[in-house]
């Protein structure tokens, strides 16, 4: 009896010791989370109900910031621009990255490592340098793009970044150039993980390439596509450098991305309260969108484990 109690006590204390150790090891993150995420979030919400230019004390203004927000044409424009850009950029990126991965996932293609390296290269470059380089490429008068159009087609090229209709597509192309390599590698590793037996079996059943693509390859890649969709969406709301360096939100506010407008309100005009209200609303929008995409994903994302019961 006494022995068993002693043992019990020992077991408990071993468990408790394990838990204490666990808490100790994860404590840096918990602390950082409280200081750099939760604290600022509370501050953000508090600020969004105040008016403050960093000088003096913040003045409470109730819901006025939020009311103003929905009448602010520029804020609505920034939402429009960000969403249109995302709707173009994300599918285009998926298409290019997946297409390249499919081409590379081929036994007869030699030097896969070298191709992979080449396509990944732009991913590691500083966005500011990339922006400068592409500004020069897109330069309407002296840029290589328009001088080549003039040279080979004999017509003057469009004004790219200075053209309200073309600024977003131009930025999308640049973004795909800069980022497709990363997703290409993710797709490639996904493709290489697909068991050859699946293809063998379906080939015996007489399935051709496209049938296999639609029935095997694509369904098994949906988790990666889903991941790509979510990160693409979040990256769109973070987009800043291009607007700051290349277009300054123009022409005619056609590249006034959300983060750039937030920066202008907060750090050029020092409207801390108003900018905070903007951030709160966008945070809610992003949460909503993420939730929506997660819901929607249940209809099309396929997890192998669902079928086989493992993993």
């Amino acid at each position, binding site marked *: 009896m006494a022995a068993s109690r002693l043992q019990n006590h020992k077991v408990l204390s071993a468990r408790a010791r394990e*838990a204490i150790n*666990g*808490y100790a*090891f*994860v404590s840096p993150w*918990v602390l*950082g*989370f409280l*200081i*750099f995420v939760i*604290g*600022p*979030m509370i501050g*953000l919400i508090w600020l969004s109900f105040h008016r403050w230019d960093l000088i003096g004390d913040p003045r409470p203004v109730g819901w006025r910031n939020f009311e103003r927000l929905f009448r602010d044409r520029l804020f609505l424009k920034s939402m429009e621009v960000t969403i249109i850009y995302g709707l173009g950029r994300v599918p285009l990126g998926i298409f290019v990255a997946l297409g390249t991965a499919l*081409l590379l*996932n*081929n*036994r*007869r293609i030699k030097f896969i490592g070298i*191709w992979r390296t*080449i*396509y990944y*290269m732009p991913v590691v470059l*500083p966005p*500011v*340098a*990339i922006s*400068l*380089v592409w500004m*020069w490429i897109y*330069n309407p008068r*002296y840029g*290589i793009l328009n*001088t080549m159009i*003039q040279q080979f087609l004999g017509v003057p090229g469009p004004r790219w970044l200075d053209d309200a209709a073309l600024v977003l597509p131009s930025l999308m192309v640049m973004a795909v150039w800069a980022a497709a390599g990363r997703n290409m*590698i*993710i797709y490639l*590793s996904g*493709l*290489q*993980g697909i*068991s*050859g037996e699946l*293809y*063998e079996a379906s*080939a015996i059943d007489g399935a051709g390439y*496209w049938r*296999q693509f639609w029935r095997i390859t694509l369904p098994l890649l949906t*988790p990666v596509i889903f*991941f790509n969709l*979510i*990160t693409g969406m*979040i*990256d769109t*709301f973070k987009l*800043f450098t291009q607007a700051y360096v290349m277009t300054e939100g123009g022409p005619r506010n056609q590249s006034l991305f959300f*983060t750039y407008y937030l920066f202008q309100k*907060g750090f050029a005009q020092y409207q801390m309260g108003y900018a*905070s209200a903007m951030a709160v609303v966008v945070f809610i929008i*992003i949460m909503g969108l993420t939730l929506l995409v997660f819901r929607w994903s249940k209809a099309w994302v396929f997890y192998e484990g669902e079928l086989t019961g493992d993993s």
Partner: protein
Amino acid sequence: MAIKLAIATPKRKPRLFDKYLPHLSIAAIYAILLLGAVMVFFPFAWTISTSLKTEQQTLEYPPTWVPDPVQWENYPDALTARPFGRYYVNTTIITVLSVVGQVVSSAVVAYGFARFRFPGRGVLFLIVLSTLMIPFHILIIPRFILFKYLGWLDTFLPLIVPNFFGGAFSIFLLRQYFLTIPLDLDEAAKMDGASSFQIFLRIILPLARPALGAVAVFEFMSTWNDFFGPLIYLSSDRNYTISIGLAAFRNDYFTAWHLYMAAAAVALLVPLVVFFLAQKYFISGVALTGSGGSKG
């Protein structure tokens, strides 16, 4: 989840898919791949070509690819037009300290999640993962105010210190990797009287080198290339990083594309060199998580 934990490039599986590629001959595939590669290199080539021209030559029509004469002076001219040497030193200091902080703290936290049972572990880890989905730019205003009150504005601290509390992406990546290390090794060490911390130092860390390498290179790239953070927190020229220095340089002249391109070419160089030296960590790291190098 479609997380593949093979950190070494999987080369065992025969890829049968290709047998059934329709319509596309091998030559056509190579042609497309080559076209893609040309498109990747095109901006590099144009950058280097411009960086070696005179200002006059940059405005010529039709454009020439090979500068004549070759203006090597553009490089020293561009790099001394602003204190780029200083910017490189600053960026290096910020990046090295951030990488050290991020790797050490994330490894410690990941070890806690991977090897200890404690109440609330599942929920905490879920919170770690969910922070991956917050675009942290939206917290920039309260963070700016926090650092203002700490007196940290226009110092490197706001850019470095948060890295010492672990990063969600790094923690996730390392935890996944730690879970693949057999528990038997821990048990054996425990028998020999090793403490949890000794096990972490002597067994887990040495075995997790590939994952630690991946975390380090991702952190290196994201700090080295960061623009938004330094732009907000640093204000005096002597504290600038390369990225904000480069953006400011662009506004120094009306059009000096030959100089901008020279400065940009140098800015492209360091990340490229690091990439080529540490390539395996990039590729395996990206493949490892299926979650790329994007972090908040």
